[in-house]
């Protein structure tokens, strides 16, 4: 949302000026401009000739225009974004404008940079604010797990799924790539999935098996609907062997797919692999920078396109529970990549492999447990799950 002011913009405002004093008109004039997120829109409306006669812009516009011009020439600030980052006193010193004029310039720059004006939570609940969909969740496909997650993965942030090898993380990732393709009334988002593999090649045979078994897993959905969905066509698979290609994928290809509505979930399997092997122990500063850049681009994609992002992570052993612990001292493993990554994650889930087996019909599976480590809207809770032919399914707790 950064805007540049150029000669055309200043020209348009100069054409329609008529000097007229009055502090009240000034407040009215800046009011609508401040409320509209696009400052330029207000300019073109006012430059129409009939609008000029009815509602001539007033004296402060000239001041604002000269103010902006001085900011551009004397202060060498070329965009509203740079203006917002400079303090009022610095601007006064650089341009020689008075305090009131500088405040006007800052208010105009801030109005151009803000994303949206404040909305109330009630408006959000009623869906009156476009862009943020209240309560939209991506279901996992199993009613027990959907109940644990209160509907499923939230669409506006990064969800992390960590666990030991063989715990079933990739299985859950595959299952989500299929459940996203169902319509919204069945817990999906009516779109495809982007699956980025960073270590092992994509388990294509397992995906085919899951697709065949969808009618068994999703017994709540009418079979005609399931057969109408072309599952494998809508799963986009990328293999990225290093950080650079991952960044290229996230900055070029992912936004294209998301903007066209072809995908509505990004699964990255796994994040730890690239960061752990590409950096030495003393390169942690560089690693942190890359990690921040990566997580920042993930978050931007997630918020801009209202897409859930699932990052699969590995775990490390915890050797001694020191005083500075990152979680309740109850486990011997914690997710990899440390505090810097943990700060970027909205929802943290963990899949553990437990002792014992469970059986369902003719199938048996090793017992696993999906736990919520932290989430803004979820209780610290877990459900026992098994990995079956048709996918990951929770079992109701005996307790």
């Amino acid at each position, binding site marked *: 949302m950064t805007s540049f002011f150029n000669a055309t913009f200043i020209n348009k405002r100069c054409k329609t000026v008529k000097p007229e004093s009055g502090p009240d008109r000034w407040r009215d004039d800046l009011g609508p401009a401040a409320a509209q997120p696009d400052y330029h829109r207000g300019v073109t409306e006012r430059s129409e000739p009939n609008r000029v006669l009815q509602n001539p812009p007033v004296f402060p516009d000239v001041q604002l225009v000269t103010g902006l011009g001085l900011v551009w020439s004397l202060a060498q600030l070329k965009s509203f974004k740079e203006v917002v980052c400079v303090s009022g006193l610095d601007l006064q010193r650089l341009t020689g404008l008075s305090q009131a004029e500088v405040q006007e310039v800052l*208010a105009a720059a801030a109005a151009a940079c803000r994303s949206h004006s404040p909305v109330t939570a009630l408006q959000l609940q009623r869906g009156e604010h476009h862009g943020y969909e209240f309560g939209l969740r991506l279901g996992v496909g199993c009613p027990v797990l959907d109940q644990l997650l209160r509907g499923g993965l939230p669409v506006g942030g990064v969800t992390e799924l960590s666990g030991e090898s063989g715990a079933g993380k990739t299985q859950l990732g595959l299952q989500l790539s299929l459940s996203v393709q169902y319509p919204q009334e069945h817990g999906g988002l009516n779109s495809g999935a982007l699956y980025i593999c960073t270590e092992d090649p994509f388990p294509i045979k397992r995906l085919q098996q899951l697709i065949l078994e969808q009618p068994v897993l999703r017994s709540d959905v009418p079979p005609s609907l399931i057969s109408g969905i072309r599952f494998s066509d809508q799963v986009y698979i990328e293999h990225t062997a290093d950080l650079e290609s991952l960044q290229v994928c996230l900055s070029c290809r992912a936004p294209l797919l998301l903007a066209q509505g072809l995908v509505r979930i990004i699964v990255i399997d796994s994040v730890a692999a690239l960061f752990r092997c590409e950096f030495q122990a003393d390169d942690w500063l560089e690693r942190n*920078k890359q990690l921040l850049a990566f997580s920042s681009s993930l978050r931007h994609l997630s918020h801009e396109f209202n897409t859930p992002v699932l990052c699969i992570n590995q775990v490390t052993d915890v050797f001694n529970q020191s005083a500075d612990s990152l979680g309740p001292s109850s486990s011997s493993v914690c997710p990899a990549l440390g505090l810097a990554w943990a700060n970027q994650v909205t929802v943290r889930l963990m899949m553990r492999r437990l002792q014992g087996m469970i059986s369902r019909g003719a199938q048996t599976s090793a017992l696993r447990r999906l736990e919520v480590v932290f989430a803004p809207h979820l209780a610290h809770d877990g459900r026992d799950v098994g990995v079956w032919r048709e996918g990951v399914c929770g079992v109701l707790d005996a307790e």
Partner: protein
Amino acid sequence: MRRPLSSLNLGTNVKVKLGRAGFQFTSDLQHLNPEQLSQEAGVSQQEALQVLQAADTGGGGGTFLSALELLQKEEGSRSIVTFCSQLDHALGGGLPVGKTTEICGVPGIGKTQLCLQLAVDVQLPQCFGGVEGQVIFLDTEGSFLLQRVVDMSAAAVRHCSMLAEDEEQQVAMTTFTVENILSNIFLVHCRDYVELLAELHLLPAFLQERTKIRLLIIDSVTLPFLQLFDDLSQRTRLLQGLGQKLIAIATNHNIAVVITNHMTTRLRGAHSHLVPALGDIWGHAPTTRLLLEWEGSQRLASILKSPGHMETTAQYQITCEGFRDAAQSEQPQSKRSRTFTD
């Protein structure tokens, strides 16, 4: 007071015109009204008004308050309760209105939960000991999930309706509903530090219109500034400006400012320990600093820095109803009903 006009907060062209007309000091401007000044100096009416105002106030100085007036003002103002009585007691009633408070802790400890709880608690009617104000929430992390806010509001309404005894409280309960609570929470999503700074520039104008706002929450202030890892000096400068702006907003508009901060690891010799992020310079900005941490499986809230209170620690828990006291009984009816053992 006799001050040279060049030291006042005016534009250079105005100062030049005044100088050419022969006005050197503020005493020269006495007994002049705006029309006379604009005629003599050749400045416009509005500029003449500005000059006289600046000369009167001595360049924009503040008014003086005696310590007794300040004490009366502080005693008259209420605090925002957190619903955890141990923590409220340690803070002397709750979070103070008119001051900035920082909440830091590791991810998952409950910072956002406490912020959401405060967003609901600030709206408690005055007859229940609340502040009855509105709240503006600047969300930079995307952790403002409406499901949770609805849960907490419903729990607060239930809690108050159980407590409602006399006439006044019953009347207040008719307006204290989940819908009303949601309508009093203003939300802005800020995706990077530029949007956050822009929002804070526009906040004073917003607060002038909505005088009932008593709480500003920024969750979190660290995340947008992490992008500036390349240019630490710019980051420090922006943070200092931000801190000053927040203090100005808190005192001028009489609102409580709550900021959330992350933790980062600091290495000291061979040991590493967790400290609040954004450095020591940011540490000077908030008045009070609360640290939320784990001790075993218990959550603790400690007051790290406060001008008026001792450094105490309180236990708390997060239940499905929100931020509450740690349960004293053996079987806590809490969200964390299971501790997992391998």
